[in-house]
């Protein structure tokens, strides 16, 4: 009898294992603390200022070139020192900056800065395109090592190719030479290139190298900066970090203010966004911290139409693994977005398998503004409305 009771109790207890997991629980719990507390190096806790309270941008160090100074009132300073004798040229197409050197005898060189998304087709493809431009046969992957040298650019080391043309491709009289440096910068690749009459390029080579060395790649110090924080090769008000005075703080109420003084429009920063440090090619950046993967918001601008609306949308589509659109298909895949300042632009939602890009492209006069959110699919879905509100709040 005794053991029957013991057995019965243990069997019941045993069978009860696993029960209770399906019950609805009702309880009171402390509210979650807002996720803004950050430990300071001294060990205490401080509050991270909201993104809207961090200075968004400021004038970077100014150019020494006469050309730059002449247009300083409208054109923001560039993050490099332009060598004496280089004449600023209008940037067009995908170029973010353009310079030229001319000689009375008709010889000239063309210096350009081009930024492209991702690897921009790969090193071999670009080198062969440049070789073709100066009448050289295509190189193979194995040839690249012999053409390549490593040079300093800012506080980083980058790859440079020297391509010496043999044929007289310039006016049928002069052979051409190209020097091109390739700087990977986050999700972009920036190309610094000088091309033109062979002897004149050789003459300008020291200036070209000094120019590259002067590029503000951010990070400070002599150490090699991590790629993600390298900045900045755009002729734009470089970065919030490259402050040399004159910055305006965003006004209260979530991030307006600052408009005009730093070249940036006013906007309302959604809660939870965190102003990010300097990044190449960007005027401002925000992180959207999320356990599922951070979202990234970038604001940049390019001269003209920045290479074209469709080209940019297709570049973004490529970044999330979507096939490019035909010219006529853009309208069906985009909508118009209007901002508080009365501007209107093109709004796209590019949903890839893993990543999603939300973007707004605003054409204003001679520049195009790019507002882009890149995030894992779920984070983008969660922040879609906030991003649209951000874009709609823009006032130039």
């Amino acid at each position, binding site marked *: 009898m005794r*053991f029957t009771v013991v057995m019965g109790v243990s069997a019941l*207890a*045993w069978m009860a294992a696993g029960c209770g997991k399906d019950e609805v629980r009702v309880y009171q*719990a402390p509210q979650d603390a807002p996720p803004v507390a950050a430990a300071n190096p001294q060990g205490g806790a401080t509050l991270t200022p909201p993104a809207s309270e961090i200075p968004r941008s400021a004038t970077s160090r100014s150019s020494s070139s006469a050309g730059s100074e002449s247009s300083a009132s409208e054109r923001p300073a560039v993050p490099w020192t332009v060598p004496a004798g280089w004449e600023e040229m209008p940037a067009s197409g995908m170029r973010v900056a353009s310079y030229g050197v001319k000689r009375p005898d008709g010889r000239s060189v063309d210096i350009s800065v081009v930024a492209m998304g991702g690897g921009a087709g790969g090193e071999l493809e670009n080198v062969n395109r440049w070789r073709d431009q100066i009448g050289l046969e295509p190189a193979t992957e194995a040839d690249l090592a012999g053409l390549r040298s490593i040079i300093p650019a800012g506080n980083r080391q980058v790859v440079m190719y020297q391509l010496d043309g043999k044929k007289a491709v310039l006016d049928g009289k002069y052979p051409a030479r190209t020097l091109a440096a390739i700087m990977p910068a986050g999700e972009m690749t920036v190309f610094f290139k000088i091309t033109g009459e062979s002897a004149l390029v050789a003459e300008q080579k020291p200036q070209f190298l000094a120019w590259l060395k002067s590029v503000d790649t951010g990070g400070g110090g002599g150490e090699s900066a991590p790629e993600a924080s390298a900045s900045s090769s755009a002729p734009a008000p470089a970065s919030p970090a490259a402050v040399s005075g004159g910055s305006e703080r965003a006004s209260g109420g979530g991030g307006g203010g600052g408009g005009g003084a730093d070249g940036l429009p006013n906007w309302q920063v959604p809660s939870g966004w965190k102003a990010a440090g300097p990044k190449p090619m960007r005027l401002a*950046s925000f992180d959207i911290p999320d356990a599922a993967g951070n979202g990234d918001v970038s604001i940049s601008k390019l001269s003209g139409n920045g290479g074209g609306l469709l080209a940019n949308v297709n570049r973004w589509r490529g970044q999330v693994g979507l096939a490019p659109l035909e010219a006529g298909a853009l309208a*069906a895949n985009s909508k118009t977005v209007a901002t508080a300042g009365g501007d209107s632009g093109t709004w796209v939602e590019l949903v890839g398998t893993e990543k999603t890009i939300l973007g707004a492209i605003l054409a204003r006069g001679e520049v195009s503004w790019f507002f882009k959110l890149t995030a894992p*699919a779920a984070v983008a*879905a969660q922040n879609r409305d906030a991003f649209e509100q951000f874009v709609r709040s823009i006032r130039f």
Partner: protein
Amino acid sequence: MISKLFQFLSSLRLTVVLLGLGVVVVFFGTLGQTSDGLYVAQERYFRSWFAYWTPHGSTFPVVPLPGGYLLGTMLVINLIVAHFTRFKWTWSKSGIFLTHIGIILLLLGQLATDMLARESIMSFREGDTRNYSESSMDFELAFLRSAGSNTLDQVVSIPASRLKPGAELRQELLPFAIRVKEAYENARIRLRAPVMDSNRPPAATQGVGARIVIDEQPPTRTMDARNVPAAVIELSGPSSLGTWALSGELKSQTVTVEGTEWRLEYRPVRDYKPFALTLLKTTHETYPGTDIPKNFQSRVRLRNTESHEDREVDIYMNSPLRYGGYTFFQYQMGKEQLADGGRGTSALQVVLNPSWVTPYLGCILVGVGLLVQFLMHLTKFIARRKPRAA
């Protein structure tokens, strides 16, 4: 008849068969783990009364097996019945008794662990304070509203296992009924693409669900990934409140009913503690020149307002924090991937096991029992040899 039953239940033959079957279940459970993963295999082969093994990729049950619960129960019964029927208490068998009590304690201790032990994860960033840990496997649908103060929430938590398509759930605190329309064990959400999804309606009519679609994914069984469940529910109060998409990937959504704001969160099941830990500093040291971890260490501040405790503790490998019945082990360490470098992050494995002492006691009893029995035989043996030697 009854005596025959007792004879069967107390037989040594049954013990041997049960132990043999235990080996077989462990073997097939280990095989099953390759396709089912650790947690599913545990549930299927060891936390069950009956099980069957199927080859990978097949659904046909090939090998029927007794489950872990059945074997454990039968072993306990076998041992207890044997003591009541076959064993007679004498001092000369005290070692065997002690050993058997130790084995029973081990078996019952395992049952208690299975019933009462809870494992969860407390993950935070430097500067964050946590007074709860989260399940690494189970999700809950939590409805939260302010409890009338600025610091407390009233929470109604419904386990994800209750969200079955077609189910209707009511709770007296909730001013609405919950009708489950869809439920997924593992799913990803994404924005509804403008053209690609033109023939596909949004996942729900309200909240972020109106802009997203839910893509069902095959359940994952690997140790380094976990399922993210999703569901679509309809809320109906005095009037229809529309359909809502839930996903472990989504943060909270808000629905207002009769002037009260309720937040919906589909989140890992939370276990609140009566104390809080603040992560002060993470230390991640590697052996020079390698990525091999040398030391993961979290410095936390432990605060308990009831006992007025406020102290700092270092938690690192092989040096857990034991407090309030919980054991906090250093589990993972990382860093926020933000442009400014981000803060260090740490995850602590939180184990609550009220019966943690039973395996130790059981093993001590088994050891002592064997020692006693051995010494008794030894002394008898020596005593028998002495007269012969004399």
